[in-house]
Protein backbone atom coordinates (compact mmCIF):
# COMPACT_ATOMS: atom_id res chain seq x y z
CA UNK A 1 0.00 0.00 0.00
CA UNK A 2 2.75 2.40 0.99
CA UNK A 3 4.63 1.26 -2.08
CA UNK A 4 1.71 2.29 -4.28
CA UNK A 5 1.44 5.71 -2.69
CA UNK A 6 5.14 6.21 -3.24
CA UNK A 7 4.87 5.33 -6.91
CA UNK A 8 1.93 7.65 -7.41
CA UNK A 9 3.86 10.43 -5.69
CA UNK A 10 6.83 9.85 -7.97
CA UNK A 11 4.66 9.83 -11.08
CA UNK A 12 2.95 13.00 -9.96
CA UNK A 13 6.25 14.75 -9.44
CA UNK A 14 7.35 13.74 -12.93
CA UNK A 15 4.09 14.90 -14.46
CA UNK A 16 4.27 18.21 -12.62
CA UNK A 17 7.83 18.78 -13.83
CA UNK A 18 6.66 18.09 -17.38
CA UNK A 19 3.85 20.59 -17.08
CA UNK A 20 5.71 23.20 -15.07
CA UNK A 21 6.81 25.17 -18.13
CA UNK A 22 3.19 25.45 -19.27
CA UNK A 23 2.25 26.72 -15.84
CA UNK A 24 5.13 29.17 -16.07
CA UNK A 25 3.80 30.40 -19.41
CA UNK A 26 0.45 31.18 -17.80
CA UNK A 27 2.03 32.81 -14.75
CA UNK A 28 4.11 35.10 -16.92
CA UNK A 29 1.12 35.88 -19.12
CA UNK A 30 -0.86 37.10 -16.13
CA UNK A 31 1.98 39.06 -14.49
CA UNK A 32 2.61 42.78 -14.72
CA UNK A 33 5.32 43.33 -17.38
CA UNK A 34 7.58 45.26 -15.07
CA UNK A 35 7.47 42.51 -12.48
CA UNK A 36 8.30 39.81 -15.00
CA UNK A 37 11.84 40.99 -15.66
CA UNK A 38 13.12 40.75 -12.15
CA UNK A 39 14.93 38.44 -9.80
CA UNK A 40 13.78 36.43 -7.95
CA UNK A 41 10.85 35.46 -10.17
CA UNK A 42 7.45 35.25 -8.58
CA UNK A 43 5.82 31.87 -8.78
CA UNK A 44 2.34 33.22 -8.42
CA UNK A 45 1.47 36.52 -10.07
CA UNK A 46 0.74 39.03 -7.36
CA UNK A 47 -1.33 40.84 -8.41
CA UNK A 48 -2.58 38.97 -11.45
CA UNK A 49 -3.44 41.13 -14.40
CA UNK A 50 -4.89 40.78 -17.85
CA UNK A 51 -3.18 43.85 -19.22
CA UNK A 52 -0.84 41.75 -21.37
CA UNK A 53 -3.77 40.18 -23.14
CA UNK A 54 -5.32 43.57 -23.73
CA UNK A 55 -2.00 44.87 -24.99
CA UNK A 56 -1.46 42.16 -27.55
CA UNK A 57 -4.94 42.34 -29.00
CA UNK A 58 -4.12 45.89 -29.91
CA UNK A 59 -1.43 44.43 -32.08
CA UNK A 60 -2.35 44.77 -35.70
CA UNK A 61 -2.01 41.16 -36.65
CA UNK A 62 -2.71 38.95 -33.66
CA UNK A 63 -6.39 38.44 -34.33
CA UNK A 64 -5.68 38.07 -38.02
CA UNK A 65 -3.15 35.34 -37.29
CA UNK A 66 -5.65 33.49 -35.13
CA UNK A 67 -8.28 33.83 -37.83
CA UNK A 68 -5.88 32.56 -40.48
CA UNK A 69 -5.03 29.58 -38.34
CA UNK A 70 -8.69 28.79 -37.84
CA UNK A 71 -9.45 29.08 -41.55
CA UNK A 72 -6.54 26.87 -42.53
CA UNK A 73 -7.19 24.26 -39.85
CA UNK A 74 -10.89 23.95 -40.59
CA UNK A 75 -10.38 23.83 -44.36
CA UNK A 76 -7.64 21.25 -44.32
CA UNK A 77 -9.47 19.13 -41.78
CA UNK A 78 -12.79 19.29 -43.57
CA UNK A 79 -11.44 18.78 -47.07
CA UNK A 80 -8.62 16.45 -46.20
CA UNK A 81 -10.66 14.10 -44.05
CA UNK A 82 -13.43 13.99 -46.64
CA UNK A 83 -11.02 13.05 -49.41
CA UNK A 84 -9.09 10.62 -47.25
CA UNK A 85 -12.24 8.89 -46.07
CA UNK A 86 -13.37 8.22 -49.63
CA UNK A 87 -9.91 7.05 -50.63
CA UNK A 88 -9.54 4.88 -47.54
CA UNK A 89 -12.93 3.33 -48.14
CA UNK A 90 -11.96 2.57 -51.70
CA UNK A 91 -8.72 0.91 -50.66
CA UNK A 92 -10.33 -1.00 -47.84
CA UNK A 93 -13.45 -2.29 -49.51
CA UNK A 94 -13.17 -2.06 -53.23
CA UNK A 95 -11.23 -4.27 -55.56
CA UNK A 96 -10.07 -2.72 -58.77
CA UNK A 97 -7.05 -3.24 -60.94
CA UNK A 98 -4.16 -1.27 -59.53
CA UNK A 99 -5.45 -0.85 -56.01
CA UNK A 100 -2.47 -2.76 -54.61
CA UNK A 101 -0.09 -0.54 -56.53
CA UNK A 102 -1.75 2.61 -55.26
CA UNK A 103 -1.70 1.31 -51.71
CA UNK A 104 2.00 0.61 -51.92
CA UNK A 105 2.66 4.02 -53.39
CA UNK A 106 0.93 5.56 -50.38
CA UNK A 107 2.78 3.37 -47.90
CA UNK A 108 6.14 3.94 -49.56
CA UNK A 109 5.62 7.68 -49.62
CA UNK A 110 5.07 7.74 -45.87
CA UNK A 111 8.74 6.85 -45.53
CA UNK A 112 9.81 9.97 -47.36
CA UNK A 113 10.59 12.85 -45.01
CA UNK A 114 8.59 15.89 -45.96
CA UNK A 115 11.66 18.11 -46.22
CA UNK A 116 12.38 16.59 -49.61
CA UNK A 117 9.11 18.09 -50.79
CA UNK A 118 9.44 21.53 -49.19
CA UNK A 119 11.57 23.31 -51.76
CA UNK A 120 9.95 21.81 -54.87
CA UNK A 121 6.53 22.39 -53.33
CA UNK A 122 7.47 26.03 -52.99
CA UNK A 123 8.53 26.15 -56.61
CA UNK A 124 5.23 24.55 -57.60
CA UNK A 125 3.23 26.98 -55.51
CA UNK A 126 5.16 29.81 -57.09
CA UNK A 127 4.40 28.60 -60.60
CA UNK A 128 0.73 28.32 -59.68
CA UNK A 129 0.91 31.91 -58.45
CA UNK A 130 -0.36 30.83 -55.05
CA UNK A 131 2.46 32.13 -52.88
CA UNK A 132 1.21 34.09 -49.90
CA UNK A 133 -2.38 32.90 -50.30
CA UNK A 134 -4.61 30.61 -48.29
CA UNK A 135 -4.52 28.14 -51.19
CA UNK A 136 -0.82 27.52 -50.67
CA UNK A 137 -1.49 26.79 -47.03
CA UNK A 138 -4.45 24.51 -47.62
CA UNK A 139 -4.20 22.60 -50.89
CA UNK A 140 -0.93 20.74 -50.29
CA UNK A 141 -2.42 19.05 -47.24
CA UNK A 142 -5.57 17.65 -48.79
CA UNK A 143 -3.79 14.57 -50.10
CA UNK A 144 -1.70 13.24 -47.24
CA UNK A 145 -0.79 9.54 -47.38
CA UNK A 146 -1.02 8.81 -43.66
CA UNK A 147 -4.61 10.02 -43.52
CA UNK A 148 -5.63 7.50 -46.16
CA UNK A 149 -3.69 4.77 -44.46
CA UNK A 150 -5.35 5.47 -41.15
CA UNK A 151 -8.82 5.42 -42.72
CA UNK A 152 -8.09 2.21 -44.60
CA UNK A 153 -6.95 0.47 -41.43
CA UNK A 154 -10.09 1.53 -39.70
CA UNK A 155 -12.55 0.82 -42.46
CA UNK A 156 -11.16 -2.64 -43.17
CA UNK A 157 -12.89 -3.74 -40.01
CA UNK A 158 -16.32 -2.52 -41.10
CA UNK A 159 -18.68 -5.33 -42.09
CA UNK A 160 -18.68 -6.01 -45.80
CA UNK A 161 -22.02 -7.81 -45.65
CA UNK A 162 -23.68 -4.50 -44.93
CA UNK A 163 -22.28 -3.10 -48.14
CA UNK A 164 -23.27 -6.16 -50.13
CA UNK A 165 -26.83 -6.18 -48.92
CA UNK A 166 -27.19 -2.48 -49.63
CA UNK A 167 -25.90 -3.03 -53.11
CA UNK A 168 -28.38 -5.86 -53.67
CA UNK A 169 -31.09 -3.54 -52.46
CA UNK A 170 -30.16 -1.29 -55.34
CA UNK A 171 -28.29 1.38 -53.45
CA UNK A 172 -25.85 3.35 -55.58
CA UNK A 173 -22.16 3.32 -54.74
CA UNK A 174 -22.30 6.89 -53.52
CA UNK A 175 -25.41 6.09 -51.51
CA UNK A 176 -23.67 3.21 -49.82
CA UNK A 177 -20.82 5.46 -48.89
CA UNK A 178 -22.87 8.39 -47.69
CA UNK A 179 -25.64 6.56 -45.87
CA UNK A 180 -23.92 3.50 -44.49
CA UNK A 181 -20.16 3.72 -44.41
CA UNK A 182 -19.72 7.31 -43.37
CA UNK A 183 -22.00 7.21 -40.29
CA UNK A 184 -20.36 3.96 -39.16
CA UNK A 185 -16.91 5.37 -39.62
CA UNK A 186 -17.48 8.62 -37.74
CA UNK A 187 -15.87 7.22 -34.62
CA UNK A 188 -12.66 6.29 -36.38
CA UNK A 189 -12.71 9.41 -38.51
CA UNK A 190 -12.87 11.52 -35.37
CA UNK A 191 -9.33 10.44 -34.60
CA UNK A 192 -8.20 11.64 -38.00
CA UNK A 193 -10.19 14.87 -37.67
CA UNK A 194 -8.70 15.74 -34.31
CA UNK A 195 -5.13 14.92 -35.28
CA UNK A 196 -5.37 16.78 -38.58
CA UNK A 197 -6.83 19.84 -36.91
CA UNK A 198 -4.11 20.04 -34.28
CA UNK A 199 -1.34 19.36 -36.79
CA UNK A 200 -2.56 22.22 -38.95
CA UNK A 201 -3.03 24.59 -36.02
CA UNK A 202 0.56 23.96 -34.95
CA UNK A 203 2.07 24.03 -38.43
CA UNK A 204 5.15 26.22 -38.70
CA UNK A 205 7.87 25.49 -41.26
CA UNK A 206 5.65 25.40 -44.32
CA UNK A 207 3.82 28.57 -43.29
CA UNK A 208 7.18 30.26 -42.87
CA UNK A 209 8.12 29.28 -46.41
CA UNK A 210 4.85 29.80 -48.21
CA UNK A 211 4.01 33.25 -46.87
CA UNK A 212 5.71 36.54 -47.61
CA UNK A 213 3.51 39.07 -45.92
CA UNK A 214 3.14 39.13 -42.17
CA UNK A 215 -0.66 39.21 -42.33
CA UNK A 216 -0.87 35.81 -43.99
CA UNK A 217 1.04 34.01 -41.27
CA UNK A 218 -0.67 31.63 -38.94
CA UNK A 219 -0.48 32.05 -35.18
CA UNK A 220 2.70 29.99 -34.83
CA UNK A 221 4.65 31.88 -37.46
CA UNK A 222 3.07 35.07 -36.16
CA UNK A 223 4.28 34.33 -32.65
CA UNK A 224 7.76 33.84 -34.01
CA UNK A 225 7.57 37.14 -35.88
CA UNK A 226 6.35 38.91 -32.76
CA UNK A 227 9.16 37.46 -30.68
CA UNK A 228 11.76 38.51 -33.24
CA UNK A 229 10.34 42.02 -33.22
CA UNK A 230 10.15 42.41 -29.43
CA UNK A 231 12.65 39.96 -27.97
CA UNK A 232 12.37 40.85 -24.33
CA UNK A 233 8.65 41.42 -24.01
CA UNK A 234 8.12 38.08 -22.41
CA UNK A 235 4.91 38.97 -20.65
CA UNK A 236 3.38 39.72 -24.05
CA UNK A 237 4.99 36.74 -25.74
CA UNK A 238 3.66 34.43 -23.04
CA UNK A 239 0.21 36.00 -23.25
CA UNK A 240 0.12 35.45 -27.00
CA UNK A 241 1.41 31.90 -26.53
CA UNK A 242 -1.33 31.22 -24.01
CA UNK A 243 -3.95 32.46 -26.45
CA UNK A 244 -2.50 30.24 -29.15
CA UNK A 245 -2.31 27.18 -26.92
CA UNK A 246 -5.71 27.38 -25.24
CA UNK A 247 -7.80 26.24 -28.22
CA UNK A 248 -5.61 23.15 -28.53
CA UNK A 249 -5.92 22.42 -24.82
CA UNK A 250 -9.68 22.62 -25.15
CA UNK A 251 -9.64 20.28 -28.13
CA UNK A 252 -7.36 17.91 -26.27
CA UNK A 253 -9.46 17.70 -23.15
CA UNK A 254 -12.64 17.25 -25.17
CA UNK A 255 -11.23 14.52 -27.35
CA UNK A 256 -8.66 12.93 -25.06
CA UNK A 257 -9.35 9.33 -25.85
CA UNK A 258 -9.29 10.01 -29.58
CA UNK A 259 -5.77 11.39 -29.28
CA UNK A 260 -4.56 8.46 -27.29
CA UNK A 261 -6.24 6.10 -29.74
CA UNK A 262 -4.71 7.89 -32.69
CA UNK A 263 -1.20 7.41 -31.42
CA UNK A 264 -1.50 3.66 -31.31
CA UNK A 265 -3.18 3.24 -34.71
CA UNK A 266 -0.63 2.10 -37.19
CA UNK A 267 2.03 1.46 -34.62
CA UNK A 268 0.44 -1.63 -33.15
CA UNK A 269 -1.39 -4.18 -35.23
CA UNK A 270 -5.13 -4.06 -34.55
Amino acid at each position, binding site marked *: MLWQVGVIALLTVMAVVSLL*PLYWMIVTAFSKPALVLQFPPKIVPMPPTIENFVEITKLKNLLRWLANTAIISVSVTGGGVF*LASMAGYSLAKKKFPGNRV*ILWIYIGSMMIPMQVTLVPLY*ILVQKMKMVDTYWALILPFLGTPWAVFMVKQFMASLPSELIESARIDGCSEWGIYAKIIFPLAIQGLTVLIVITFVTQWNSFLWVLIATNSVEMRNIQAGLSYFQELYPMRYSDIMAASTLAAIPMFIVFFSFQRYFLKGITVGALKG
Partner: protein
Amino acid sequence: MSSGVSVSSSVLKRASKERAGYLFILPHFIFFTVFFLIPVIWGVYYSFFNYTLFDFEFWGLKGYAKLLKDRYFWIALRNTFYYTAGIVPLWLIKALIISVLLFPFGTRLQTTYKSMFYLPHVSSLVIISMIWLWIYEPQYGLLNAVMKLLHLPTQIWLGNRFLAMPSIIFMQFVMGGGSTIVLVSAALAGIPPSFVEVARIEGANPVQIFFKILLPSIKPIILYLVVMGTINSFQVFTQVYVLTKGGPQFATTTMVYQIYYRAFENFDLGASLAQSVLMMLILVVFAVIQFKWLGGEVEY
Protein backbone atom coordinates in the same frame (compact mmCIF):
# COMPACT_ATOMS: atom_id res chain seq x y z
CA MET B 1 -32.18 -16.47 -71.95
CA SER B 2 -32.46 -15.25 -68.38
CA SER B 3 -28.98 -16.51 -67.51
CA GLY B 4 -27.56 -14.42 -70.34
CA VAL B 5 -29.22 -11.32 -68.93
CA SER B 6 -28.03 -11.99 -65.37
CA VAL B 7 -24.42 -12.62 -66.50
CA SER B 8 -24.18 -9.33 -68.33
CA SER B 9 -25.86 -7.40 -65.51
CA SER B 10 -23.41 -8.80 -62.96
CA VAL B 11 -20.55 -7.85 -65.26
CA LEU B 12 -22.01 -4.37 -65.45
CA LYS B 13 -22.35 -4.30 -61.67
CA ARG B 14 -18.72 -5.29 -61.27
CA ALA B 15 -17.63 -2.68 -63.76
CA SER B 16 -19.58 0.00 -61.92
CA LYS B 17 -18.12 -1.19 -58.62
CA GLU B 18 -14.64 -0.93 -60.05
CA ARG B 19 -15.33 2.43 -61.56
CA ALA B 20 -16.60 3.57 -58.18
CA GLY B 21 -13.35 2.35 -56.67
CA TYR B 22 -11.39 4.60 -59.00
CA LEU B 23 -13.71 7.55 -58.55
CA PHE B 24 -13.62 7.39 -54.79
CA ILE B 25 -9.88 7.40 -54.66
CA LEU B 26 -9.28 9.82 -57.49
CA PRO B 27 -9.69 13.22 -55.78
CA HIS B 28 -7.32 12.32 -52.98
CA PHE B 29 -4.86 10.72 -55.35
CA ILE B 30 -4.84 13.80 -57.53
CA PHE B 31 -3.94 16.08 -54.62
CA PHE B 32 -1.40 13.53 -53.45
CA THR B 33 0.23 13.35 -56.87
CA VAL B 34 0.26 17.08 -57.51
CA PHE B 35 1.39 18.22 -54.08
CA PHE B 36 3.54 15.30 -52.98
CA LEU B 37 4.66 12.85 -55.68
CA ILE B 38 5.51 15.45 -58.28
CA PRO B 39 7.42 17.64 -55.80
CA VAL B 40 9.40 14.63 -54.63
CA ILE B 41 10.32 13.69 -58.18
CA TRP B 42 11.13 17.31 -59.05
CA GLY B 43 13.17 17.57 -55.89
CA VAL B 44 15.35 14.66 -56.85
CA TYR B 45 15.56 15.89 -60.43
CA TYR B 46 16.54 19.47 -59.58
CA SER B 47 19.10 18.24 -57.07
CA PHE B 48 21.27 17.50 -60.08
CA PHE B 49 21.15 21.12 -61.15
CA ASN B 50 23.08 24.18 -60.22
CA TYR B 51 19.92 25.99 -59.24
CA THR B 52 20.31 29.39 -57.65
CA LEU B 53 18.90 32.86 -58.18
CA PHE B 54 21.13 33.30 -61.19
CA ASP B 55 21.89 29.83 -62.49
CA PHE B 56 19.91 26.95 -63.80
CA GLU B 57 22.05 24.30 -65.47
CA PHE B 58 22.43 20.58 -65.18
CA TRP B 59 25.65 19.54 -63.54
CA GLY B 60 24.95 16.00 -62.40
CA LEU B 61 26.72 14.93 -59.28
CA LYS B 62 28.82 18.09 -59.02
CA GLY B 63 26.34 19.58 -56.59
CA TYR B 64 26.55 16.52 -54.36
CA ALA B 65 30.35 16.56 -54.48
CA LYS B 66 30.38 20.24 -53.57
CA LEU B 67 28.05 19.56 -50.68
CA LEU B 68 30.13 16.71 -49.34
CA LYS B 69 33.20 18.95 -49.40
CA ASP B 70 31.36 21.65 -47.43
CA ARG B 71 32.44 21.50 -43.80
CA TYR B 72 29.17 23.08 -42.70
CA PHE B 73 27.31 20.13 -44.14
CA TRP B 74 29.26 17.82 -41.86
CA ILE B 75 28.72 20.13 -38.92
CA ALA B 76 24.97 20.00 -39.52
CA LEU B 77 25.09 16.23 -39.85
CA ARG B 78 27.08 15.90 -36.66
CA ASN B 79 24.72 18.19 -34.77
CA THR B 80 21.71 16.26 -35.99
CA PHE B 81 23.28 12.98 -34.90
CA TYR B 82 24.05 14.56 -31.54
CA TYR B 83 20.46 15.64 -31.08
CA THR B 84 18.99 12.34 -32.25
CA ALA B 85 21.39 10.19 -30.23
CA GLY B 86 20.48 12.31 -27.23
CA ILE B 87 16.74 12.44 -27.39
CA VAL B 88 15.75 9.00 -28.74
CA PRO B 89 17.29 6.96 -25.91
CA LEU B 90 16.26 9.53 -23.30
CA TRP B 91 12.64 9.40 -24.42
CA LEU B 92 12.70 5.62 -24.48
CA ILE B 93 14.09 5.42 -20.97
CA LYS B 94 11.59 8.00 -19.73
CA ALA B 95 8.75 6.09 -21.39
CA LEU B 96 9.89 2.75 -20.00
CA ILE B 97 10.20 4.05 -16.47
CA ILE B 98 6.86 5.81 -16.52
CA SER B 99 5.04 2.95 -18.25
CA VAL B 100 6.39 0.38 -15.84
CA LEU B 101 5.45 2.57 -12.89
CA LEU B 102 1.96 3.06 -14.31
CA PHE B 103 1.51 -0.58 -15.23
CA PRO B 104 -0.11 -1.95 -12.07
CA PHE B 105 -2.73 0.76 -11.87
CA GLY B 106 -6.26 0.95 -13.25
CA THR B 107 -7.24 2.37 -16.63
CA ARG B 108 -8.67 5.60 -15.27
CA LEU B 109 -5.49 6.52 -13.48
CA GLN B 110 -3.29 5.43 -16.35
CA THR B 111 -5.22 7.56 -18.82
CA THR B 112 -5.03 10.57 -16.53
CA TYR B 113 -1.27 10.39 -16.26
CA LYS B 114 -0.76 9.55 -19.92
CA SER B 115 -2.82 12.60 -20.80
CA MET B 116 -0.74 14.77 -18.52
CA PHE B 117 2.44 13.59 -20.17
CA TYR B 118 0.95 14.02 -23.62
CA LEU B 119 -0.41 17.52 -23.06
CA PRO B 120 2.79 19.38 -24.00
CA HIS B 121 2.66 17.75 -27.44
CA VAL B 122 -0.62 19.46 -28.14
CA SER B 123 0.75 22.93 -27.68
CA SER B 124 2.97 23.58 -30.60
CA LEU B 125 6.74 23.31 -30.77
CA VAL B 126 6.79 27.06 -31.35
CA ILE B 127 5.02 27.72 -28.07
CA ILE B 128 7.16 25.27 -26.12
CA SER B 129 10.30 26.77 -27.58
CA MET B 130 9.11 30.26 -26.68
CA ILE B 131 8.50 29.19 -23.09
CA TRP B 132 11.95 27.70 -22.84
CA LEU B 133 13.51 30.71 -24.54
CA TRP B 134 12.09 32.54 -21.55
CA ILE B 135 13.19 29.89 -19.05
CA TYR B 136 16.72 29.91 -20.46
CA GLU B 137 16.90 33.73 -20.47
CA PRO B 138 20.28 34.55 -18.89
CA GLN B 139 19.30 37.44 -16.64
CA TYR B 140 15.70 36.92 -15.60
CA GLY B 141 14.92 33.41 -16.72
CA LEU B 142 13.62 30.76 -14.38
CA LEU B 143 16.52 28.34 -14.73
CA ASN B 144 19.22 30.83 -13.80
CA ALA B 145 17.06 31.99 -10.91
CA VAL B 146 17.03 28.42 -9.66
CA MET B 147 20.79 28.18 -10.21
CA LYS B 148 21.32 31.32 -8.13
CA LEU B 149 19.12 29.94 -5.38
CA LEU B 150 21.22 26.77 -5.36
CA HIS B 151 24.41 28.87 -5.31
CA LEU B 152 25.44 27.44 -8.65
CA PRO B 153 27.00 29.56 -11.39
CA THR B 154 24.48 30.89 -13.86
CA GLN B 155 24.94 30.01 -17.52
CA ILE B 156 24.11 31.49 -20.87
CA TRP B 157 22.28 28.35 -21.81
CA LEU B 158 21.58 29.06 -25.43
CA GLY B 159 24.58 31.26 -26.06
CA ASN B 160 27.21 28.80 -24.94
CA ARG B 161 28.61 26.59 -27.68
CA PHE B 162 28.68 23.54 -25.45
CA LEU B 163 25.42 24.05 -23.63
CA ALA B 164 23.20 25.05 -26.53
CA MET B 165 22.44 21.61 -27.97
CA PRO B 166 22.14 19.93 -24.54
CA SER B 167 19.70 22.70 -23.62
CA ILE B 168 17.53 21.87 -26.61
CA ILE B 169 17.73 18.16 -25.82
CA PHE B 170 16.85 18.84 -22.19
CA MET B 171 13.80 20.83 -23.17
CA GLN B 172 12.60 17.99 -25.41
CA PHE B 173 13.28 15.46 -22.70
CA VAL B 174 11.27 17.28 -20.07
CA MET B 175 8.32 18.27 -22.23
CA GLY B 176 8.14 15.51 -24.76
CA GLY B 177 7.96 11.78 -25.13
CA GLY B 178 4.22 11.67 -24.50
CA SER B 179 3.44 9.55 -27.52
CA THR B 180 6.35 7.25 -26.71
CA ILE B 181 4.86 6.72 -23.27
CA VAL B 182 1.44 5.90 -24.74
CA LEU B 183 2.94 3.36 -27.12
CA VAL B 184 5.17 1.64 -24.58
CA SER B 185 2.25 1.52 -22.18
CA ALA B 186 0.04 -0.07 -24.78
CA ALA B 187 2.73 -2.60 -25.61
CA LEU B 188 3.17 -3.53 -21.96
CA ALA B 189 -0.56 -4.00 -21.68
CA GLY B 190 -0.35 -6.50 -24.51
CA ILE B 191 1.93 -8.85 -22.66
CA PRO B 192 -0.01 -11.90 -21.47
CA PRO B 193 -0.29 -11.65 -17.68
CA SER B 194 0.68 -15.31 -17.37
CA PHE B 195 4.24 -14.46 -18.43
CA VAL B 196 4.71 -12.20 -15.44
CA GLU B 197 2.79 -14.52 -13.12
CA VAL B 198 4.92 -17.54 -13.95
CA ALA B 199 8.10 -15.54 -13.39
CA ARG B 200 6.84 -14.23 -10.09
CA ILE B 201 5.90 -17.72 -8.93
CA GLU B 202 9.37 -18.90 -9.82
CA GLY B 203 10.75 -16.26 -7.50
CA ALA B 204 12.04 -13.65 -9.93
CA ASN B 205 12.45 -10.17 -8.48
CA PRO B 206 11.04 -7.07 -10.24
CA VAL B 207 14.37 -6.18 -11.86
CA GLN B 208 14.70 -9.63 -13.39
CA ILE B 209 11.09 -9.55 -14.53
CA PHE B 210 11.74 -6.22 -16.20
CA PHE B 211 14.85 -7.22 -18.08
CA LYS B 212 14.09 -10.84 -18.86
CA ILE B 213 10.34 -10.73 -19.51
CA LEU B 214 8.99 -7.25 -20.12
CA LEU B 215 11.72 -5.82 -22.31
CA PRO B 216 12.02 -8.77 -24.67
CA SER B 217 8.24 -8.97 -25.00
CA ILE B 218 7.96 -5.42 -26.25
CA LYS B 219 10.95 -5.62 -28.56
CA PRO B 220 8.82 -4.93 -31.68
CA ILE B 221 7.49 -1.68 -30.31
CA ILE B 222 10.93 -0.63 -29.13
CA LEU B 223 12.28 -1.24 -32.61
CA TYR B 224 9.43 0.77 -34.07
CA LEU B 225 10.06 3.61 -31.62
CA VAL B 226 13.78 3.67 -32.32
CA VAL B 227 13.27 3.77 -36.08
CA MET B 228 10.44 6.30 -36.04
CA GLY B 229 12.13 8.27 -33.29
CA THR B 230 15.29 8.55 -35.36
CA ILE B 231 13.39 9.59 -38.47
CA ASN B 232 11.39 12.20 -36.60
CA SER B 233 14.22 13.59 -34.49
CA PHE B 234 16.40 13.91 -37.54
CA GLN B 235 13.93 16.43 -38.88
CA VAL B 236 14.26 18.82 -35.95
CA PHE B 237 13.78 22.41 -37.09
CA THR B 238 11.34 24.56 -35.14
CA GLN B 239 13.19 24.41 -31.83
CA VAL B 240 16.44 25.41 -33.51
CA TYR B 241 14.78 28.25 -35.42
CA VAL B 242 13.10 29.72 -32.35
CA LEU B 243 15.80 29.13 -29.75
CA THR B 244 19.14 29.58 -31.43
CA LYS B 245 18.74 30.15 -35.18
CA GLY B 246 21.41 27.51 -35.66
CA GLY B 247 23.98 29.16 -33.42
CA PRO B 248 26.02 29.87 -31.48
CA GLN B 249 28.67 29.41 -34.13
CA PHE B 250 26.67 26.70 -35.87
CA ALA B 251 26.58 24.56 -32.74
CA THR B 252 22.90 23.84 -33.21
CA THR B 253 22.60 23.97 -36.97
CA THR B 254 20.78 20.79 -37.92
CA MET B 255 20.14 19.19 -41.31
CA VAL B 256 16.66 20.55 -41.85
CA TYR B 257 17.59 23.98 -40.54
CA GLN B 258 20.46 24.06 -43.02
CA ILE B 259 18.23 22.78 -45.83
CA TYR B 260 15.84 25.64 -45.07
CA TYR B 261 18.66 28.15 -44.79
CA ARG B 262 20.33 27.15 -48.06
CA ALA B 263 17.08 27.43 -49.97
CA PHE B 264 15.44 30.47 -48.43
CA GLU B 265 18.29 32.58 -47.13
CA ASN B 266 21.11 31.66 -49.51
CA PHE B 267 18.78 30.95 -52.42
CA ASP B 268 20.88 27.95 -53.39
CA LEU B 269 18.02 25.60 -54.24
CA GLY B 270 20.23 22.96 -55.86
CA ALA B 271 22.35 22.51 -52.76
CA SER B 272 19.28 22.49 -50.53
CA LEU B 273 17.68 19.77 -52.62
CA ALA B 274 20.87 17.71 -52.77
CA GLN B 275 21.08 17.90 -49.00
CA SER B 276 17.49 16.79 -48.54
CA VAL B 277 18.02 13.84 -50.87
CA LEU B 278 21.14 12.89 -48.93
CA MET B 279 19.20 13.19 -45.70
CA MET B 280 16.55 10.85 -47.05
CA LEU B 281 19.23 8.32 -48.04
CA ILE B 282 20.84 8.55 -44.62
CA LEU B 283 17.50 7.88 -42.96
CA VAL B 284 16.91 4.84 -45.17
CA VAL B 285 20.34 3.45 -44.26
CA PHE B 286 19.62 4.11 -40.60
CA ALA B 287 16.29 2.33 -40.76
CA VAL B 288 17.87 -0.70 -42.40
CA ILE B 289 20.69 -0.82 -39.83
CA GLN B 290 18.25 -0.50 -36.96
CA PHE B 291 16.05 -3.25 -38.37
CA LYS B 292 19.01 -5.58 -38.67
CA TRP B 293 20.46 -4.72 -35.30
CA LEU B 294 17.26 -4.76 -33.28
CA GLY B 295 15.01 -6.66 -35.63
CA GLY B 296 16.17 -10.20 -35.39
CA GLU B 297 13.10 -12.38 -35.53
CA VAL B 298 10.67 -9.50 -35.32
CA GLU B 299 8.01 -9.69 -37.97
CA TYR B 300 6.64 -6.24 -38.72
